[in-house]
């Protein structure tokens, strides 16, 4: 599967849908089989369109892209170097900023507490107190975020999104199979309500996964 061209993914989905069509037909649900067959055809067309694109790229494209690749790698290494300095500087700057803000923030919190106790004395309703406490906790969370800002890694985020979308797709596919079994054996009417949206969501997640995973 590692050396698969991107076009194979939609074709795999088409194949799975066609197998599902056969299973559904064997079960006697011709209407569902018809829908699945149509989706299978669509995915086959998508796969072939991508295959067309793959073929239309000249075989020496990679060689032709080598100088550009070098430039990109130089740019990326300099970006990495400067980026690290930038991140370090940003971290120091943020630390300093936090150091300066810390005093003001603590004072502000202290003053707010004093004012709240005064306000409490003057305005006892508990609801207002609760809301203010929430505001305080929100501010605390922001402070924490500020403290951790320099730790964030963008590359890891993409991998994370890709992983999450795959997991969602798998989870929803399992749900899809259970729904299918439930629909065929017990009550199709209920399943029909969300079935097509479910397929679209699964396909969306898979597409996202494929797009984020592909490395040219």
């Amino acid at each position, binding site marked *: 599967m590692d050396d698969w061209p991107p076009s194979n993914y939609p074709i795999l989905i088409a194949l799975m849908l066609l197998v599902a069509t056969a299973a559904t037909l064997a079960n006697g649900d011709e209407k569902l089989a018809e829908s699945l*067959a149509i989706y299978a055809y669509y995915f086959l067309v998508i796969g072939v369109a991508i295959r067309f694109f793959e073929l239309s790229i000249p075989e020496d494209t990679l060689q032709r892209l080598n100088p550009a690749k070098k430039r990109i790698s130089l740019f990326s290494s300099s970006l990495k170097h400067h980026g690290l300095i930038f991140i370090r500087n940003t971290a120091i700057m943020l630390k300093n900023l936090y150091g300066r803000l810390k005093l003001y923030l603590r004072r502000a919190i202290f003053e707010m507490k004093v004012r709240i106790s005064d306000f409490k004395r003057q305005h006892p309703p508990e609801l207002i107190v609760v809301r203010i406490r929430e505001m305080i906790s929100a501010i605390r969370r922001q402070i924490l975020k500020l403290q951790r800002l320099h730790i964030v890694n963008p590359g890891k985020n993409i991998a994370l999104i890709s992983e999450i979308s795959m997991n969602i797709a798998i989870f929803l596919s399992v749900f899809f199979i259970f729904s299918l079994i439930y629909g065929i054996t017990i009550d199709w009417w209920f399943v029909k309500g969300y079935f097509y949206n479910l397929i679209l969501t699964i396909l969306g997640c898979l597409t996202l996964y494929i797009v984020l995973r592909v490395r040219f």
Partner: protein
Amino acid sequence: MGNKKILHTGIVLFFLLLSFVINKIPDGTFIAGGDFYQLININNNIERNFFTWFNQAGQGQYNPLIVALPFYMIQDILYNIGFSYANIANSIMFLFFICSFYSFYFAVRIINENVPDNIRLLSSAIYAINIFTFTIFTYPWWIAHHFIIYVFIPLLFAYFERLIIRCSGKDVSFFIILFLISTMGFNNLAFFAALLFLQVLFIVILLAIKKIPLNLRTIKRIMLVFSLQLILSIYFILPFFTSQLEYVSKISTGKAFGDFISWLSYTSNNAYGILSFVMTGDKYPMVNLYSKSNIFVAISLGYTISILYAIMYQKRKQEKYWLHYLTVFLVLLFLLMRGTAPFDKINIFLYTLPGFNLFRSPDKLFVFYPFFYLVLLSLLLCHSKLSKKMISAILIFILIIPIPFYIGGIPAYLSHENEKGYKYTIQIPSEYYTIEKIVNKDDKQLSIISLPYSVVNSLNWANYPKWHFVGHDVLHLLYNKYYISANTYDHPALETNLSFKEYNEANRIDKYKFLKILQKFSGKYILLHNDIEKYWIDNSKITYNTIKELEANNIIKKLDENEYFALYELDENYLIPLVFSDKNKLSFKKSSPVKYEVYLYNLKNKTNIEFHQSYNSQWKLYLKSNPGNSLCKPSGYYKNSKTTECEQTTQLFEISDIAYIWQNSMSDDTHKMVNEYANGWIIDPEYIIANYPEEYYNKNPDGSIDIELTLYFKPQSYFYMGLMISGIAFILCIRYLYRDWKKKTPNKSTAATSSSEKPYGKV
């Protein structure tokens, strides 16, 4: 005997077993139904395909089956060496199998030499045995001319691809010969149009994937191939277009076929059906005689699943070998979805485009589907990472999918009565054969009229539930008279009116009106059916009672009656001949369905001539020089129209007929439709005297003139001309190939001398 010889002997034996043993058609039956039927009395019916006018069935119309003559000649040969109708059917089945197999077998070799033998053999077998061919065999299509094209598609396309990619003189010669032989498959011009359409599509895709470069050389090759095809097809295209010109606009707008959109949806199949190789929803595996389960439809999806599976296991960068076939396959799939949602919107638009509506019936494009599918599968498997065993297993699985082929499904399906009791293996009641002696006792050009109007399924079809038949009335094959069915329009192509139906609906007995209708078709016999649907027996009282009244008045006489029909004969005094003049004495002789000699006597004033065949502007009158009527042997005289009918002399071909292409016809401006279907002309003697030399007429003492005319259907001349062009091309190609073969084959004597000289040389 080499391994290959054993293998191919085995293949032939396998197909023999499949045709003559497993799927044996029951003796004593023949196959007919829908628009297609086997020929009965083949010797008497074969000659009709020599001519561009088909006048045995009804009022006559253009005959597109001129191209299918070789196919019917094969049947004729089998009939004459003693084969029964059932045996002829089995032989045609065998020929279909074996020709499809080898056509594909050689085509794959031409398309890609690297395809291994196991793939070639098995995919060729699948080309012969698949669900689509089972569909063909479970309807009377295969016993008639309709799907001959299926056999030729692989070789036609393979050579087409080869000529586009690399063009040699030898390839061109092979292509010309092959194309000329394959034209027998173009009995329906839509198949030819479909071939051209797919060829154009194929070229576009080849250019898109850069398999061929877009340069002057490629354009020249493309032009050469298309020009060759058009020139070689001229012998059937030209007669078709000249004779159908007045109907083309009607057909191209789809009006001739009612509501086009409804028709498109009615003839559409489900998407999963199309992916399972099923053309229409009323055939196997959708309709399964052996099981009610849908499991067989599910198994049939194995066809497309195998394609997808093979794509998944492709070696890298092998797309150039198969992507063009995959693209055509997908486009075909899309078009075959027809009126199926969600493809219906685009397809309705496409199918209503001018020219594209020729493919309104699913068979026109579907017939190409197995070829593209199997070439694609062969190429995919050839370039896949799958093992040889796995590939063979996949192909054997696909070969097994149409299970009924192997358990005698063909005769079972043909003999299966549908819910209304109709089937395709029928036996015409012997009563119809017994009246042959009466009806065929002379060869007068008169009609036998089949009554009453009794359409159930489709106009132009007859329903005889008593003997399980529905379709184009096969009874016309038994008699030598023009068979006029009340179920067809008076003018079959222009769809003018249905006189007998309208008479019955008027709900009033008027024996003279009825007699006039009989006379306008030159009727002599009436075949009054009792074997039609009961509804029509109950609702045709007016027709039945009118006939009783005519009988009571001695206008008609009953000749025979049985449980199936009653046969009546019109009294001689009321007979109207096929050709007659309203004022003058006339004699005529039929030379062939396209040619009549007419002699007009004592022409003094303008006179009308009527010809009781359906109107076509290509029926022409030619004035003959040195008129004489010495060759006429009178066979009948019609008192009321002063007409003499001469004995028929059938001439298959006369070289002089080609001259009608450039010869001027007369009275074209007066050629009109009469009696709502027939041809009529006005002949003006003054015009003849003023414009023609004296040798073209005989002047009588009273000032009147006698003239001789030839009534000719001009497209026949175009047919001859086209045949000559094609024949010359064929002979030249054979000559070229022979010379090429001679060049390559060393002379035996030279070879022997050189071989005998060699040892001496060495010594």
